[in-house]
């Protein structure tokens, strides 16, 4: 899998684009098992997504009144955050290779959650 990062200004268009791309991606994946996935990411898939995912977990727990004790906090682990990221539309595979272009040797806000063991060149 190869990932690219792009940035957009319009929040609304971004939200719509993200949903549309996801739906198209799922359809294509079903019809062509030998496909290669091309994913376009934006600034909102980075830290913002983690904040949204955390908020989603809190909302669900508040609804189910599960924040009554210390034990409830223990359910907040990596799998829960992964699932929440998926729901907010920003979960993705961890790329094996990240290519950085230009004079800056930084990943410029690429979703950090996925960069755990990614090779960066």
């Amino acid at each position, binding site marked *: 899998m190869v990932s690219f990062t*792009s*940035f957009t*200004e319009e929040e609304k268009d971004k939200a719509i684009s993200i949903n549309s791309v996801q739906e198209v991606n799922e359809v294509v994946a079903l019809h062509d098992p030998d496909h290669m996935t091309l994913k376009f990411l934006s*600034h909102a898939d*980075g*830290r*913002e997504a*983690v*904040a949204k995912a*955390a*908020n989603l*977990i*809190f*909302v669900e*727990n*508040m609804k189910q009144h599960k*924040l*009554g004790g210390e034990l*409830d*906090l223990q359910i*907040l*682990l*990596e799998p829960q*955050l992964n699932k929440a990221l998926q729901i907010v539309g920003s979960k993705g595979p961890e790329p094996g290779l990240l290519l950085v272009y230009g*004079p*800056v*040797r*930084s*990943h*410029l*806000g*690429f979703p*950090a*959650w996925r*960069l*755990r*063991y*990614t*090779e*960066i*060149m």
Partner: protein
Amino acid sequence: MFSLRLPIPLVKTPPSSSSYSPYYLCPFHDPCQTRGLIVSKRGSATAKCHADVTLRHDRVSFAGESPDPFPAELAAEMMPKHVAVIMDGNGRWAKVKGLPPSAGHQAGVQSLRRMVRLCSSWGIKVLTVFAFSTDNWVRPKLEFDFLMRLFETTINSEVQAFKREGIQISVIGDSSKLPESLKRMIVSVEEDTKHNSRLQLIVALSYSGKYDVVQACKSVAKKVKDDHLHLDDINENIIEQELETNCTEFPYPDLLIRTSGELRVSNFLLWQLAYTELYFNQKLWPDFGKDEFVDALSSFQQRKRRYGGRHA
């Protein structure tokens, strides 16, 4: 129209007081000079430095007054405030020399001492080192036990020097799995050095980037439960305040150095590294010395200048 949105502004260097500064020159060393530097490095490595270096506002050391004078090829005003290091390669260093892994870790401690001394001398405010990852728990128990004892003996032997030289020690990571004696020692050394301000050395023990994000979310959840925080207020900034790097004034590294030739950040400061300059070096950590550090800093300064030039 394509535009770049950076949530965190890049550090802008203040305009130079004079249009010309010798520090902006980047002379390339000829082989003779390089050999001289090598000799100098070995000399300084073996000699013990007892000189007491006082804190100066200009951050520029003068020859003779400091064990590590400021390198001529670097610009003092463009030094990174926060340097993070993934100290990788101790095991391989020992292997190529036919030594046990423990010898590699001991040599790695010497490299860390040298790095701390250089950062103190050259005005870097924060040095964060990745000493032990939560992903390292899979290492053999014998090596793990040795590492824990090495951490304890190193902290114990260095604490007086840290206090004397104005170095503040902070330890981040999941301490629940560490030996009790090491935990007590950490509490003690953090307390003893908390008022020091020349250099803050942050040691990541049993740490990983994902662990840090998860524990930050837990902290936020607790505040929501205790009604100290409303759900609508949760955003990036709230989570940032709960990351373990909130122990420092400069939580976001300007420069990350990864040794041993690997090109990964290996679950280190994932959140904090979003806009950090990444520098990968081929040397194994025990061989990463003053020359290599100068190269990394020079590379960092080159990038900043070129990046700024695009907006000129």
